């Protein structure tokens, strides 16, 4: 039997044991649901993944989109696959009933989407961008814009993009130069070049709704002068039917190392008379609105990192159980049968590392997803604000940790397969290539680390930081009372103490030393924080596992929970000690990278 796409037992553990998804039914928004509707949605997603995406996954990877100068060509199988997703309602599962959604809790939608990500990954990127685009408009656009653009996107007739990046403005959006000029009818004329726009052109939908960042004529320089516009590929006639071409020209396609099914486009807006754009919200507030989408997209990016890590883990685990090769060091008899490679301790090490990364990352992204729900639907105002504080603070970590350690997990998956992992007869090298993007888009790791230490930590008297620490302390106290976990409870306590003292000294350096030097090791800070957070989430998993083991569960579950505890131990013994290395660099304001001169290379 082929390897499972994902460990279903683990998904169930995450949803119903680690996080109380079933408890969400108590919230008014979710009152029509129960565990069965959740499971049915997951089954439907799995069925679509198996039927429509898995069979074309490799073709999507090997047949990247082409541009003949006029039109983009994708493999023909993708369109019906995406249509199947749309017809099933999965694309709009979390939306309100009025918009044709089923008000599914986001954490369940995210669990269901894992199958689609693994089976067709990037093909689904079109839908995900569309959902995020529609959500942004719903939060910030006028009723008129929502009525016109959101519904067709949720129906799958239109698709959406986010168009920020320009050739001269990537990480630093403040320098963007796309122009918008107000026209007499109140709309704008947008012109300029954008690059790397995912899903910027294709033939999968009737229309494409670009959300474009541009500077209104006369607006301030820098990030304060950026506005957001809806710029459709085709204008609409009064009756809503597709109208005139809106001068959004495809200048070319980029050829990527992974994620090949999703077009990456260079777009040229309004070369002749300007593309018609409709302002979202108010002028000069564009970046703020875009952050709405980006925050959501950042959770999606982290989720993709985590899910692909799990996919590689499951695949290499299955392979390791079935590939006979070599004998144990203790066995000298050449006539004895070969062992399956999982019998080699080093292979188990690589599998454990993957498990620790993949399931740790999955816990993190689902935690983030649940917070994004809690900030809207938690019972009390206070709880909603608290969830918002935590999520806002943790977003750089939720985005980055899975994006950095997901590809590491995939690299181990390749290693477990040896030479067979390096060739495309197995999907692990593709998982690695697809996953490698995640540390780059939606703010690189470097940018995220600056966001964390320079913005998020000091913000609102360190409110988010302190809330996060207090959440970790709660777990430390609980774990201390559980036999077998006290070692890890005190390790986490030490790590949190280290984090506190390190944070203090970095903040101090930022106010007393050359700021460029004080921030030179910002990625070490992000790495350290990420590891402490993942250690915390592993301890949470350990608590669930220990409590479950005390109840004498079924043999299968015993194995499952034992595996959780072993991965917890792996993370604490082999990964967490890294914290000390980062601490030293940070506390000493180590200047090795800062002092390095371009000429010395």
């Amino acid at each position, binding site marked *: 039997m082929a390897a499972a796409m994902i460990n279903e037992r683990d998904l169930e553990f995450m949803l119903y044991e680690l996080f109380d998804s079933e408890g969400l039914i108590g919230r008014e928004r979710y009152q029509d649901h*129960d565990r*069965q*509707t959740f499971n049915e949605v997951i089954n439907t997603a799995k069925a679509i993944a198996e*039927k429509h995406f898995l069979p074309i996954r490799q073709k999507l990877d090997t047949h990247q989109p082409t541009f003949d100068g006029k039109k983009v060509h994708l493999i023909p199988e993708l369109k019906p696959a995406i249509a199947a997703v749309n017809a099933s309602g*999965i694309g709009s599962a979390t939306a309100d009933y009025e918009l044709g959604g*089923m008000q599914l809790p986001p954490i369940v939608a995210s669990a269901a989407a894992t199958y689609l990500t693994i089976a067709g990954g990037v093909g689904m990127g079109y839908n995900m961008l569309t959902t995020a685009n529609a959500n942004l408009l719903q939060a910030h656009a006028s009723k008129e814009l929502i009525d016109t653009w959101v519904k067709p996107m949720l129906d799958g007739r239109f698709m959406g993009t986010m168009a920020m990046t320009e050739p001269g403005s990537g990480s630093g959006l403040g320098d963007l130069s796309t122009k918008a000029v107000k026209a007499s009818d109140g709309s704008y004329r947008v012109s300029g070049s954008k690059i790397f726009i995912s899903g910027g052109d294709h033939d999968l939908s009737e229309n494409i709704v670009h959300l474009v960042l541009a500077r209104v004529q006369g607006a301030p320089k820098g990030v304060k002068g950026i506005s957001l516009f809806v710029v459709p590929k085709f204008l609409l006639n009064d009756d809503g039917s597709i109208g005139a071409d809106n001068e959004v020209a495809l200048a070319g396609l980029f050829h990527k190392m992974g994620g090949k099914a999703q077009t990456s486009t260079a777009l040229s807006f309004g070369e002749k008379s300007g593309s018609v754009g409709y302002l979202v919200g108010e002028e000069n507030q564009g970046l703020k609105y875009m952050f709405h989408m980006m925050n959501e997209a950042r959770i999606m990016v982290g989720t993709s990192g985590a899910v692909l890590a799990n996919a590689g883990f499951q695949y290499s685990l299955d392979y390791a159980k079935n590939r006979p090769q070599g004998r144990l060091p203790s066995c000298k008899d050449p006539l004895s049968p070969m062992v399956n490679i999982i019998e080699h301790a080093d292979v188990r090490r690589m599998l454990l590392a993957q498990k620790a990364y993949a399931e740790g990352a999955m816990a993190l992204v689902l935690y983030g997803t649940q917070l994004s729900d809690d900030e809207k639907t938690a019972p009390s105002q206070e709880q909603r604000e608290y969830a918002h504080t935590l999520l806002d603070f943790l977003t750089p970590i939720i985005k980055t940790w899975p994006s950095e350690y997901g590809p590491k997990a995939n690299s181990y998956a390749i290693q477990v397969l040896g030479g067979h992992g390096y060739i495309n007869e197995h999907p692990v090298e593709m998982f690695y290539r697809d996953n490698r993007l995640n540390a780059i888009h939606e703010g690189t790791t470097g940018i995220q680390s600056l966001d964390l230490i320079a913005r998020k930590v000091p913000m609102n008297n360190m409110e988010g930081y302190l809330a996060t620490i207090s959440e970790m302390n709660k777990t430390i106290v609980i774990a201390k009372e559980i036999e077998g976990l006290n070692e890890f409870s005190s390790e986490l306590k030490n790590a949190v103490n280290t984090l506190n003292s390190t944070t203090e000294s970095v903040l101090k350096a930022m106010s007393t030393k050359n700021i460029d030097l004080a921030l030179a090791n910002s990625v070490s800070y992000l790495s350290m924080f990420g590891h402490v957070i993942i250690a915390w989430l592993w301890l949470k998993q350990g608590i669930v596992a220990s409590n479950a083991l005390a109840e004498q569960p*079924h043999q299968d579950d015993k194995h499952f929970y034992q595996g959780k505890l072993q991965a917890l131990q792996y993370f604490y013994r082999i990964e967490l000690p890294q914290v000390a290395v980062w601490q030293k660099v940070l506390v000493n304001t180590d200047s090795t990278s800062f002092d390095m001169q371009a000429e010395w290379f």
Partner: protein
Amino acid sequence: MKVLVPIKRVIDYNVKVRVKADNSNVDLANVKMAINPFCEIAVEEAVRLKEAGTATEVIAVSIGDKSCQEQLRTALALGADRAIQIDTDQNLDSLHVAKLLQKVVEEEQPQLVILGKQSIDSDNNQTGQMLAALTGMAQGTFASAVNVDGEKVNVTREVDGGLQTVALNLPAIVTTDLRLNEPRYASLPNIMKAKRKPLAVKPAADFGLDLTARTTLLKVTPPAERQAGIVVESIDELVEKLKNEAKVIS
């Protein structure tokens, strides 16, 4: 035209079946359950008949404890209009199942009853045939095509030598084979709609039947583990072994 679809809750076909340590039965503790794949095909066929305007109502029925409501809800999400759970925690023989279904048939008067040809857990391949005998209805088993034509239904059957098409007078019983159709998955709106469709619960005891077991399960043993292979020295040795040890050629 009313269509009745009896469905069974069984171990999920993806699950590796295990036998209890004392060989008393299959170990179902902690195991994922699902609608029997042949029953799923039956639901699909009934729903297609409804979509084609041939059937007016599709009723799913299942016999078992409360947990089989899950599979009934799945059937409702796939397009059945209402469901009946015949409530019992007894493990019933095919004959008892058929007798209970006979009562439902008497009550509901369906023109067509579509069942799976067998369930993947007990592999009996009996219920449809027994129900036909009990109700006196015509039967077309192992169907790979079903076409209702006026007062008749044409059923193409998968038989050993190929295909056989029979015309049955309605009301009739059809049991499904694997190639009859490819079942759909439930769309999200339909999953939600299913929650509001009627699901009636009727205690099995209310049907006034003697449900005492007629068969006793003595033991269950797993298939023999595959033995490790050996490398033979020559073709002759291989032939010798195939003849005398494996006894697969003579």
